[in-house]
């Protein structure tokens, strides 16, 4: 290309993508994924739909926590294992021997009858695991 002065214009080599900030970008991506990844997730073997509540406290105490699931078909899972009702007490005694002040996060399906929940809770009481949280999904506003 020839300009007014008749000079041949040099091709500018500086207009490429700046590479100096590439490490920053990679670093940010790394940090982002580190933050958003949950390290230990339990393999859930039962299916459940959580109930909805208006009041919801946040539970982020992940270290002193045991998980208990009661699925649609009444299957009970304690941490990683599917167990029968009679084994619940034994499982929680083992858990409590490791963590004395354990909080049991209960994820129970909406349509499970309370008699089952009650008998599971009785086993929990026998194993002296008394702090329970009923996990629910948060409902923004009261529909009334």
């Amino acid at each position, binding site marked *: 290309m020839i300009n007014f002065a008749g000079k041949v214009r040099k091709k500018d080599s500086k207009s490429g993508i700046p590479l*100096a900030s590439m490490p*920053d970008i990679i670093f940010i991506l790394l940090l*982002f994924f580190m933050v958003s990844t949950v390290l230990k997730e339990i393999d859930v073997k039962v299916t459940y739909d959580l109930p909805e509540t*208006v009041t919801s*406290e946040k*539970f982020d105490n992940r270290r002193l926590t045991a998980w208990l699931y009661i699925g649609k078909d009444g299957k009970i899972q304690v941490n990683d294992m599917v167990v029968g009702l009679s084994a619940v007490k034994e499982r929680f005694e083992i858990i409590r021997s490791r963590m004395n002040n354990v909080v049991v996060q209960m994820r129970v399906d909406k349509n499970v009858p309370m*008699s089952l929940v009650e008998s599971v809770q009785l086993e929990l009481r026998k194993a002296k695991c008394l702090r329970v949280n*009923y996990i629910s*999904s*948060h409902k923004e506003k009261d529909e009334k």
Partner: protein
Amino acid sequence: MSFIRRRRKGFPDVPLASMSDIAFLLLIFFIVAATIDVDTGISLSLPEYKPNEAPTQIEKKRVLEVRLSTENLTLNGKNATLAELYNAVTTAVRSTTDKPDDEKPITLLLYQGNVVYNRYIAALDQIKHGYKTVQDEVSRKKFGRAFRSLSEDDRETINSIVPVYISVGEIKNND
């Protein structure tokens, strides 16, 4: 037409010094925007297991008795809706904030075994919601802030003014 020499410059450089600032802003944005999965729900302390325990006697006027069956919900023997349950809890708790501890209301949530979990949680939710409402009111009056933004010590103070006494249990056949 004048013949002024026009210097054509090359493509302007992007300033690189601010690139890391932009990168940091992005990082902060993502950290703020990413919701790390936190469980929410209702917490409850179960009573200790003592076989053949004699039931504790509580003054009748302290008790707000809620009975759940598959068809209806009764509040101290009268049919009620969930909204009425919430109102009743709020009123009872609000009127006893300046009373001594042994006159504060106890909410008793009793359910039949065939009631589904969802219904139980809905009732428990309204009861908790009632207590929370009053705790928030007292907190705003005393500290000028919402309950959840209080420090641990201040929460304790509110909890002693508005203690959450909820008792749950299944209705056995002979009840």
